[in-house]
């Protein structure tokens, strides 16, 4: 009794942790995982989106781009570096791909170590306790279990209504696995995927354009999102705002010609690119699961799986975690934590539920944006303008001074309740190492820190992080929020 099957389409880290914990708690556990190749044929090993086509390769390529900037700064600091320094995509890609492969291997060995049975087959439900898959060689595999967890994640959408989109474009599933440089690239989309990819492509020296239908980073604080794109625009990324593509054609010389409509002017535009990268959203990977055979309900709008606070679906012993779930953040750490807590609840006698409140995250654009809690507009919407106080500052990282880097978009704001002790509702930081800066503050905010407590915290000097504890100017005061020298 109490055995467990975890269904993965892309072997997410969340199910890894869940399966490990369950196996450690003495249960028989099987993981069923399969990666459907992308339309371009890209495939990958164990670890899910994060490891193979998300966080990990993204952060490494972002780092490659940042290094380009640091190399340009270096002569100011006395280094004799011949400029311009050129970037070799192939070398970077190989290094990144090798690291990902080592992680694939590590995951595989871990499953083995924890005595988790692994089936690399595409599986679907037969009934609510049974899944069926077909292995290489045509052999059918039937697995049944008392509990089943669905963690199949999502895949990038293709805008199928745009002629040539599927045939000629790629997505984030492909970009990290390209052996050759993507060259002059058009990134279509305004998501963090779009901006992060466009960001590192620009940073390694490629001619990059972002085409957005409307606003950047929908769902994020819009003031911060504008600063993110402003920074990118002033550092070499082209933006085509208010435009939607209508067609992609391949030219005789192999380049791609894209036609679009400018919604503000109504005029048509065209451009030539080597690569078109679609970053227009992600869809849950549920089609081949035969969820109806198990009686698992999905959202009619998004097709994501509906769960309650215990991660249980409409069928009591079937659970779902990660990107495939409706209403959850599409983040690795929340999925991992939810998986672990689920294992503890199922087999470890715990009753702790996953708390999705005040989850910090960071967008790794060239100038990074870290945030936790509510956006300013969300805070105002919930509490009313009069009950919200926003403290803010434009600051200049010390490291920018010597090489004369532009710090116009280095900005931080804290959204608080106006009523003493002024509970912190949200923190937004735009600057270098935003992820490292935000992580610690997330703990404070999770613990219910107030503005008073933040102000009582002594800063570490000289850092960008200290600007948060030095916030004194409110938006309401109308005073100039520019931080003056040390």
């Amino acid at each position: 009794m109490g055995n467990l099957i975890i269904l993965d389409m892309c072997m997410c880290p969340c199910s890894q942790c869940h399966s490990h914990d369950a196996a450690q708690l003495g249960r028989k556990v099987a993981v069923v995982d399969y990666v459907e190749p992308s339309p371009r044929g890209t495939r990958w090993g164990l670890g899910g989106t994060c490891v193979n086509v998300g966080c990990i390769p993204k952060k490494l390529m972002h780092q490659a781009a940042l290094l380009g900037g640091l190399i340009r700064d270096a002569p100011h600091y006395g280094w004799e570096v011949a400029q311009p320094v050129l970037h070799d995509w192939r070398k970077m890609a190989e290094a990144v791909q090798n690291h990902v492969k080592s992680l694939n291997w590590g995951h595989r060995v871990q499953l083995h170590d924890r005595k988790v049975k692994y089936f690399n087959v595409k599986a679907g439900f037969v009934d609510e306790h049974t899944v069926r898959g077909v292995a290489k060689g045509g052999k059918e595999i039937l697995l049944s279990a008392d509990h089943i967890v669905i963690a199949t994640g999502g895949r990038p959408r293709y805008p199928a209504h745009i002629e040539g989109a599927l045939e000629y474009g790629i997505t984030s599933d492909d970009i990290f696995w390209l052996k050759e440089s993507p060259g002059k690239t058009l990134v279509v989309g305004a998501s963090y995927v779009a901006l992060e990819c466009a960001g590192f492509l620009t940073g390694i020296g490629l001619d990059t354009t972002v085409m957005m239908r409307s606003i950047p980073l929908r769902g994020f604080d819009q003031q911060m999102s504008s600063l993110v794109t402003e920074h990118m625009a002033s550092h070499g990324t082209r933006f085509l705002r208010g435009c939607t593509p209508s067609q992609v054609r391949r030219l005789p010389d192999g380049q791609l010609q894209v036609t679009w409509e400018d919604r503000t002017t109504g005029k048509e535009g065209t451009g030539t690119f080597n690569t078109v990268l679609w970053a227009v959203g992600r869809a849950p990977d549920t089609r081949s699961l035969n969820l109806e055979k198990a009686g698992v309900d999905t959202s009619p709008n998004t097709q994501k799986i509906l769960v309650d606070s215990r991660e249980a679906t409409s069928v009591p012993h079937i659970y779902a975690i990660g990107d495939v779930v409706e209403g959850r953040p599409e983040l690795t750490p929340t999925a991992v934590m939810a998986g672990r807590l689920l294992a503890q609840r199922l087999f470890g006698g715990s009753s702790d539920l996953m708390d999705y409140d005040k989850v910090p995250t960071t967008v790794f654009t060239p100038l990074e944006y870290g945030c936790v809690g509510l956006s300013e507009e969300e805070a105002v919407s919930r509490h009313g303008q009069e009950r919200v106080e926003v403290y803010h500052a434009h600051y200049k990282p010390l490291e920018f001074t010597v090489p004369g880097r532009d710090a116009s978009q280095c900005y931080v704001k804290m959204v608080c309740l106006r009523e003493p002790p002024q509970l912190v509702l949200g923190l937004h930081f735009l600057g270098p190492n935003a992820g490292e800066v935000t992580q610690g503050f997330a703990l404070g905010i999770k613990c219910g820190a107030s503005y008073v407590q933040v102000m009582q915290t002594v800063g570490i000097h000289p850092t960008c992080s200290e600007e948060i504890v030095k916030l004194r100017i409110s938006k309401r005061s109308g005073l100039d929020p520019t931080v003056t020298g040390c």
Partner: protein
Amino acid sequence: MQLLRRFLALDVSRKPSQGQWQPVPSETLQTPQCNPAGLTVTPNPARTIYTIRISSTTFNIQNGPDFQDEVVNSETPVVLDFHAQWCGPCKILGPRLENMVAKQHGKVLMAKVNVDDHTDLDIESEVLAVPTVLAMKNGDIVDKFLSIKDEDQLETFLKKLIG
């Protein structure tokens, strides 16, 4: 690069039945044949992925049947080098081992297995870290090691295998 634990489950002193590659009994995916990968035997000339023969004494394992023919059924003892693209020490051990094998004038052969290409074979045979080197004679594993060795140590290892 030692990733995780050692090659424990296979007891070197225990001899599996003659002439057959015995993967460590595992509960992973059952494949139809006893060779885990189960792909075509002879490389199709029209679809050459890469050369099998690296030199007269060293070759890459392409797949299961390849493994059966070239390693298990080999009359000459074979050293199996499990390696990976992302493994630094493998890049040092590989050429060094190839060199020492070549010096034995055909008395021992070397088969290279890329663990990323043959993950099921590796996991089933309990190869959990790279580099792992197995010594095979008459289809049985008779010796093994899991780290970088210098040329003298490799010489001793190979001579012991040849007998």
